[in-house]
């Protein structure tokens, strides 16, 4: 299809506001009369709260209120609203604390300083309980019970199976089994969790907050505060990063709301960087057991995997992470028999949850490294073994998913070419590869929304300019730009004609928000439908004006309303709009669109695919890894904004490579060892490899203009590519993330000793 706006590189529509410092993040929000809140947190990993005495704090000049669990409705909440047993978190707990840093009370005061001082004056009487920090310990019979009624601390189990697994293993010529360990990771958003809550005497609550889904927080807040949904307004115009960590209710949102409702005054709470590290949520650490059976020629037959995930103290999004790691561990390959058993185990550590890739970077790392080990063992070519078993268009994952578009094979071809072009590598240099795939929008409705998954409203004004209202949330990934492009393309106007409104539940239609790589496809479809509807109204009027032969249909391209077959015959778009509005008794033209997936399998309506190659250098003396080149062949269907895609790719590589060799959250007796940006090792510019993206264009019938996801899935391959690169460079498999220099050296020593 020939596009006018789509696939032209453009800067983000909110770019100027951001780079000139005009964008108002929650950090920047001030409301007249605003107070400042601080949260008192548990110093114990597991303890019963016997008594809280806040009298001394309340006596401090400038302190306005102190709230504890007793000031709340005590509702156990969670994002899996459909499953009550998974709603297990009281943000201000009444009885027990289950991790260090868990909120126990919150203060509102005239200044942040006074609020901080007041924290020291609150006396909490705890009965300290035995605690457990590792899922493999917590699952033992004798381990302390963290939540009542969860035997062996197992929070969720997941079983995924298709085909006859045992039968398929019987046919295998070669079977390999490995244990892997995957670390946690901090979202480390530039903007820490924060909120300004303002409750007014008319019973309405407005909350400015840093969120991936304003709608989620509207509903979650209404639930726990006993308010009507429509009396809660959530505003999130600009969000300083989310990465999967900002769509559950957090303590900043909850505590500021409770305080504001008590005082009828606005209250602002901003997490410190330490609070964000110690007391928010994190990527789920996992122990992985993988057993794979193949034929001599490399045909995959069966895979069986067991995963034990460290759930931390609460469910969070962990149940979905468990399911997705199970499903995507099969990806992007065909298995005759596949069985995955997942166990999410509570521990007395900060809760784990979703994070960009959502269980898939782990699954991909274990799978791809093992595939390389199998190829090595059988003397097979590593590209060939992937090609032989890879997904193909129209493939059906039995009982789970139907794949429509799939460009995996072209991706493999491109990467193979690139590797060949690198020629013979010097010693200790290696290239790793990883295939991957991801969903384009999760179908699971754990949240139990009664609304469409995505909705959009397109309004054409008298001057021809267009207001696009979406519930989709821009968290820095550029969804407002993507959706504006889709709207402009469909309507036949220019990008600058569109004004996007998002991040405000009072003015935007509900939408599940930014997670599961869903917005381009789902919100994109809603926008396309809304734009199509508005366009149809406009064309009705234009047809009346032009009275063409009935066999012609009309179209709009680049602000020109014309006969589709005879583009020279047409009218100026702006003129048509003006007249049309008069013709509609002054009503603006309005189109509504929505999208909810039906009959699209269990997981997603569409899947992105790709292959990444990563060239590295290993220093055999110190084990240090240097990333050199990273080339990604990516099938995202029709690219919408190539510049946005590059941004997503580079961001994903920095985050995923960091996960592969730098980032970790070591926990000692429940305490986070590195709660600051010096000791927590985010990747820095000098550590980044040169990056290149090779766009593999496919057409996804379910996506708007054929588009699929191009952001989250890119996080999946890099840890795997790093591991396979180390294997290629120095011949050792590192089965534990992150791949630290010391692990590399130890493995090399072991290899030498053999």
């Amino acid at each position, binding site marked *: 299809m020939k596009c006018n706006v789509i696939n032209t590189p453009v800067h983000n529509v909110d770019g100027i506001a951001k780079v000139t410092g005009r964008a108002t993040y929650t950090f920047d929000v001030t409301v007249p009369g605003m107070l400042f809140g601080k949260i008192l*947190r*548990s*110093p114990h990993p597991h303890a019963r709260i016997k008594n809280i005495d806040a009298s001394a704090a309340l006596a401090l000049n400038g302190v306005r209120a102190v709230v504890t669990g007793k000031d709340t409705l005590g509702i156990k909440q969670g994002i899996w609203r459909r499953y009550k047993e998974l709603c297990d978190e009281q943000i201000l707990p009444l009885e027990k604390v289950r991790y*260090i*840093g868990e909120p126990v009370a919150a203060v509102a005061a005239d200044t*942040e*300083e006074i609020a*901080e001082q007041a*924290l020291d004056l609150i006396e909490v009487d705890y009965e300290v309980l035995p605690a457990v920090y590792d899922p493999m310990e917590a699952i033992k019979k004798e381990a302390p019970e963290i939540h009542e009624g969860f035997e062996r601390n197992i929070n969720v189990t997941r079983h995924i199976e298709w085909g006859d697994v045992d039968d398929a293993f019987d046919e295998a010529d070669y079977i390999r089994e490995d244990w892997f360990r995957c670390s946690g990771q901090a979202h480390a958003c530039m903007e820490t969790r924060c909120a300004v809550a303002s409750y007014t005497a008319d019973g309405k609550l407005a909350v400015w907050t840093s969120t991936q889904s304003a709608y989620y927080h509207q509903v979650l807040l209404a639930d726990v505060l006993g308010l009507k949904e429509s009396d809660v307004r959530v505003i999130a115009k600009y969000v300083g990063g989310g990465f999967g960590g900002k769509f559950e209710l957090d303590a900043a949102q909850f505590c500021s709301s409770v305080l504001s409702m008590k005082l009828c005054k606005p209250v602002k709470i901003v997490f*410190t*960087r*330490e609070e964000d590290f*110690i*007391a928010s949520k994190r990527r789920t650490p996992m122990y992985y057991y993988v057993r794979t059976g193949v034929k001599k020629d490399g045909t995959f037959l069966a895979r069986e995997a067991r995963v034990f995930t460290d759930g931390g103290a609460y469910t969070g999004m962990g149940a979905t992470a468990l399911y997705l790691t199970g499903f995507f561990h099969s990806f992007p390959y065909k298995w005759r028999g596949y069985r995955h058993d997942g166990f999410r185990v509570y521990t007395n550590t900060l809760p784990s949850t979703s994070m960009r890739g959502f269980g898939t970077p782990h699954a991909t790392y274990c799978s791809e490294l093992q595939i390389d080990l199998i190829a090595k063992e059988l003397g097979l070519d590593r590209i060939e073994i992937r090609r032989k078993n890879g997904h193909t268009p129209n493939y059906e994952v039995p009982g789970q998913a139907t794949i429509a578009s799939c460009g995996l094979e072209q991706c493999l071809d491109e990467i193979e070419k690139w590797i060949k072009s690198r020629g013979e590598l010097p010693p200790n240099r290696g290239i790793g590869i990883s295939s991957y795939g991801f969903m384009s929008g999760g179908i699971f409705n754990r949240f139990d929304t009664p609304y469409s998954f995505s909705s959009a409203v397109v309004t054409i004004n008298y001057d021809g300019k267009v207001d696009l209202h979406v519930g989709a949330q821009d968290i820095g990934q550029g969804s407002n730009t993507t959706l504006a492009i889709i709207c402009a393309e469909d309507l036949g106007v220019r990008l600058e004609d569109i004004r996007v409104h998002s991040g405000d539940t009072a003015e935007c239609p509900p939408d599940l928000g930014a997670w599961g790589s869903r917005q381009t496809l789902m919100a994109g479809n809603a926008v396309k439908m809304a734009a199509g509807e508005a366009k149809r109204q406009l064309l009705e009027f234009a047809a009346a004006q032009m009275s063409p032969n009935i066999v012609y249909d009309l179209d709009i391209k680049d602000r020109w309303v014309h006969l589709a077959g005879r583009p020279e015959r047409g009218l100026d778009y702006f003129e048509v709009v003006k007249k049309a509005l008069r013709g509609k008794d002054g009503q603006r033209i309005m189109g509504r669109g929505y999208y909810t997936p039906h009959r699209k399998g269990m997981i997603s309506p569409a899947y992105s695919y790709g292959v990444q190659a990563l060239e590295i250098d290993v*220093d055999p*003396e*110190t*084990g*240090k890894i240097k990333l050199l080149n990273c080339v990604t062949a990516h099938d995202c269907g029709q690219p919408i904004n190539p510049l946005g895609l590059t941004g997503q790719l580079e961001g994903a590589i920095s985050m995923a490579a960091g996960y592969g060799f*730098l980032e970790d959250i*070591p926990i*000692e007796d*429940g*305490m*986070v*060892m*590195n*709660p*600051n940006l*010096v*000791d927590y*090792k985010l*990747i*820095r*510019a*000098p*550590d980044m490899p040169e990056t290149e993206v090779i766009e593999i264009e496919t057409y996804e019938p379910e996506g708007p203009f054929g588009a699929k996801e191009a952001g989250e899935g890119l996080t999946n391959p890099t840890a795997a590519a790093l591991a396979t690169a180390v294997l290629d460079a120095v011949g050792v498999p590192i089965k534990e993330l992150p791949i*630290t*220099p*010391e692990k590399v*050296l130890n493995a090399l020593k072991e290899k030498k000793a053999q």
Partner: protein
Amino acid sequence: MQLPRFDLKRPSSFHEAVRLLVEYGNAAKISAGGTDLLPRMKYRIAAPATVISLKRIPVSEPFQDSEGNLHVHALVRLSDAASSNLVRTNAPALADAALAVGSEQIRNMGTLGGNVCLEPRCHYYNQSHAYQFMDPCFKRGGNLCYLVPKGNRCWALACSDTVPALIGLRAAAVVQSGDREYTIPVEELFTGDPVRPLCLGETDLITDIVVPAARPRTAVVFRKLSPRGGIDFATVNCAVMLKLSEDREACEDAIIAIGAVSGKPMRAGQAEKNLLGRKIAPDVIHEAAGRTASEIRPSMRCDCSISYLRKCIESLTQAALETAYQRASSGDGVKPD
């Protein structure tokens, strides 16, 4: 996190600063660039009632005296030290070490004197103790150590990047002590006890660093190993000095200084001695690096093992010695004879 409240004093000379230190005693702390002090204050591990900022003290440019000694003001910003032509040509190891500190922003604020006096560091210590690791450890005046629970001392690490370089350069610190001024070799500034790391008196301040004139056939080389490209404190850092004989074959003088692995920077005395008089060759360098690694005793730490540190010390020393030999034998980076 907010800074705690404090009283700010801004003397305009070292004399006045010392007088203020005498007046306010223990309750006062010196801030030069503040890049080490302020984060500690935010974490509440330093809570001075008075902060004496040295910002108003005029900073003189590095200069060379008539004997060729290089004088660098203690308040010179690290970025200026790194880019100063005089420093680059007369003490390239110092320029390299200054450039290896932190990030651009840190170097734009941090000073040379502050880097020399950098508080020893430890993961348990350098963080907020608002709700974890709350009981004070030895370094916070308490009676326990999180790193070595059975131990009875502190194992925090002296991480300064410039100090090993200054030791390699045989530099000295000029100290203002009351009305008196004295000079002390940089190497002798450190006690080895991370709780009271400096030998300076409580009211002493470093005003200048003096690097002796560069010698012929001599090279000093600095190397740093850290997890990332920039911002990280060293896993290990190292400076070596190598002076060659007239025929540029044998070693006439050597210093191997290793930093960031213990309570004070360490010298590999045995390895140095072993080099003296020997003809420099790959196996001799290899041997010296090996000796250094077995002689230096890295302290326990929580992010890597002692045996790993030994490997790193060996690799870093070897690389530094190789470069030093190359430069000393070619005359590159040192003043001509």
